[in-house]
């Protein structure tokens, strides 16, 4: 892969992953000069008792903890304001957030509020005014992730903020905290991670440092999805593998623009007939196929990412790209089979008409880099039918 003549890379996230990862939280807090963390957990984390091991990790830490459990998903802005009051009242100096998706957005927004004193998100539009150093924030994500947890995105009050400075400095991935989301939710997390990672990998301006995160995230997501498709238990190691991939996929996105398949997936999900993760999972191969052809880029590395160097090397050069796309679509087909059709292979499988999909995606101002004029229609039609673009 050629190197761009000019690029920039930044990933402030420190990753702790694996056995007893949670036990490192107090050390990392202390290293950042924090001794009074506010530990917050969303409803699923609380119901599944995933906060217990986090609190246990502090047993001998000699730190004062604030703990707020079962935080609801509704009204995140007012919840954040209430938590900010608790943070200040109890003189906290860091946040440990256990949860997923929009809850993590709320935690990042809370951290921005307590770090700056500003309570209006619009003050930070386009990343302006977000300080380089915020209060310490540790994220403990679950295996039910939307892929943005470790990114520089914060969605709050109909406002989306993005800045590298919003990427959490600490990530802890531990089997005890990722939860047991079940096959469908886990597959959806994996599809989101795979989409973000592969779209980051196959862009014209991908640089070698971004690619390190992207290819690792893609391999983890593919490993998890292949495990699910093969009928492996969705709990334990597989859940951690998928959560791992999703977290690194968020790092890959950073504060960059959301890529085409990811954006189209969210637009199609507005119909209410398919989840965003499944919609982007269906559209991924078609977006990549269109984009690589439009940019004149080879798709060969897709094969190496999905099936390893051995398979890549023994496949003749002229067949590698097609084999990669075949594997990607076959993965979705096998998930369809394993989940009794709950994971869709095509947009048509979800009961949507082609017109429904066209209407849902019509409002997207610009689908993203590498989509040629008319390309979006072709992608949608092929993803609806389940027919390769070429």
């Amino acid at each position: 892969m050629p190197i761009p003549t000019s690029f920039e890379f930044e990933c402030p996230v420190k990753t702790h992953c694996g056995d007893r990862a949670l036990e490192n939280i107090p050390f990392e807090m202390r290293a950042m000069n924090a001794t009074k963390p506010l530990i917050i957990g969303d409803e699923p984390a609380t119901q599944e008792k995933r906060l217990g091991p986090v609190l246990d990790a502090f047993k001998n830490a000699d730190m004062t903890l604030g703990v707020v459990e079962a935080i609801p998903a509704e009204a995140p802005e007012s919840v954040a304001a209430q938590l900010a009051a608790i943070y200040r009242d109890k003189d906290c100096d860091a946040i440990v957030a256990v949860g997923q998706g929009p809850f993590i957005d709320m935690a990042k927004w809370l951290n921005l509020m307590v770090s700056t004193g500003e309570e209006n998100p619009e003050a930070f539009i386009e990343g302006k005014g977000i300080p380089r150093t915020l209060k310490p924030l540790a994220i403990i994500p679950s295996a039910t992730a939307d892929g943005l947890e470790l990114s520089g995105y914060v969605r709050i009050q109909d406002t989306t903020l993005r800045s590298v400075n919003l990427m959490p400095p600490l990530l802890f991935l531990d089997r005890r905290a990722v939860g047991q989301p079940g096959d469908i939710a886990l597959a959806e997390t994996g599809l989101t991670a795979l989409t973000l990672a592969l779209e980051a990998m196959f862009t014209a301006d991908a640089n070698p440092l971004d690619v390190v995160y992207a290819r690792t995230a893609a391999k983890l997501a593919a490993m998890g999805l292949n495990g699910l498709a093969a009928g492996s238990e969705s709990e334990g190691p597989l859940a951690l593998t998928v959560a791992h991939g999703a977290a690194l996929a968020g790092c890959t996105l950073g504060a960059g623009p959301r890529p085409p398949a990811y954006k189209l997936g969210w637009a199609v999900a507005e119909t209410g007939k398919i989840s965003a993760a499944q919609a982007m999972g269906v559209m991924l191969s078609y977006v990549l196929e269109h984009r690589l052809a439009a940019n004149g880029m080879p798709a060969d590395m897709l094969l190496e990412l999905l099936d390893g160097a051995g398979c890549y090397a023994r496949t003749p050069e002229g067949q590698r790209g097609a084999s990669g796309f075949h594997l990607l679509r076959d993965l979705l087909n096998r998930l369809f089979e394993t989940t009794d059709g709950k994971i869709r292979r095509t947009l048509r499988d979800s009961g949507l008409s082609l017109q429904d999909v066209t209407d849902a995606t019509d409002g997207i101002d610009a689908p993203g880099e590498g989509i040629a004029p008319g390309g979006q229609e072709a992608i949608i039609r092929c993803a609806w039918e389940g027919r390769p673009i070429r």
Partner: protein
Amino acid sequence: MLHIPGYYEYCCRVNVVAGHDGLEKIPALLERVQAARPLIVTDRGVAGAGLIDVVTAALGNQVAIGGVEDDVPQDSSLEAVQRIAEAYRANGCDAIIAVGGGSVLDTAKGANIMVSEETDDLMAFSGVGKLKRRLKPLIAIPTTAGTGSETTLVAVIKDHARHQKMPFVSYFLLPDAAVLDPRMTLTLPPAITAATAMDALTHAVEAYTCLAKNPLSDGNAVSAIELIARNLMTVMQQPDNRDGRLALAVAATLAGMAFSNAMVGMVHNIGHATGAVCGVPHGTCMAILLPYGLEYNQHRNGHLTAELLFHLEGAEVYAHTPRDQRAAQVIAHIREMNQSLHAITQGQHARCLRETYDRDGNRAVPFERLPEISAAAKNDPAILLNPEDLDDEDYMMVLEHAWDGSPLNRADIAEFEKKVCA
């Protein structure tokens, strides 16, 4: 293949700015960290090569430089750190730009501790995790493509009065930004280009094949290996090839990220000792010793070495090499690289310890000093994460072969394996 250990940590918080216009991005980087008056820290070699002029020309009128301190010694010292901290304060600076290699960067980090913590007692911050807050902005501009020191969280400062080397370890010591610009390495002599690139290759290979590897450090390592494999010989033949120089600079940073997070093994262990006892440059030691480290460890991690063939020589060679011969092919290929570099540099790039010479033209590593190197290696901590142990006999066996350039006798290693099993 993805190797996921039971537990790992990975961190590299350095903002990497790379490109043919990398230096021109420095004003924006300074603005981002709210700094306007940087102190430039470098050594006489870098300044003498005109590289500070290149940096200041790129900064133009956009940045008011607070001063240039160009007398960092080869071994970073407490005196140099104090002198630079004084210059920083006297000139009202608010950031440091370190232009050079490991010693310059270590000195700059030491001075940064003093000015950020407003202390004259640097020793109070020696050790692991003593720093508790962000320091003043530090921008690193490497002038070789090898050490990867721009990605490390360590500084080592020598206190000559006490004959001590003081280590400082903290994530707050990571530079805020590393600027990789091929103009900084365009004038590197061929032998130094070769040795530093082989240093980077060794960082990547040891990070991938030793015990603390993880999926992200593996990703760094294989990307670095691919870039070096595709660009080193081009740059050796066309030293002013800017794209190739940029690729090598990026490779060195990737390799630095790999070994900062996965550590190294016996190649560094013996290399450190060889450098300390006989003064052989680090990159030269790495180039010579890398095939021996892989050969020695092959019964433990040959499957990992074999995987590197894909990245080092590409898919076709990988596919056509029988599975059980891939590790040996990697080792053979690295020896071929050394051979080619030796030829291109007209013998300046040493293939074995016997071919290394000091500044006076004397043999740098006399055969009779090998026991001293062996003794020094036993006390070097880089061996901790090597896949296989080494005793006195093993060290001497490796050193004797590395001295005359002959491959290790696999039967000897097998004997050792049996000894361990027994």
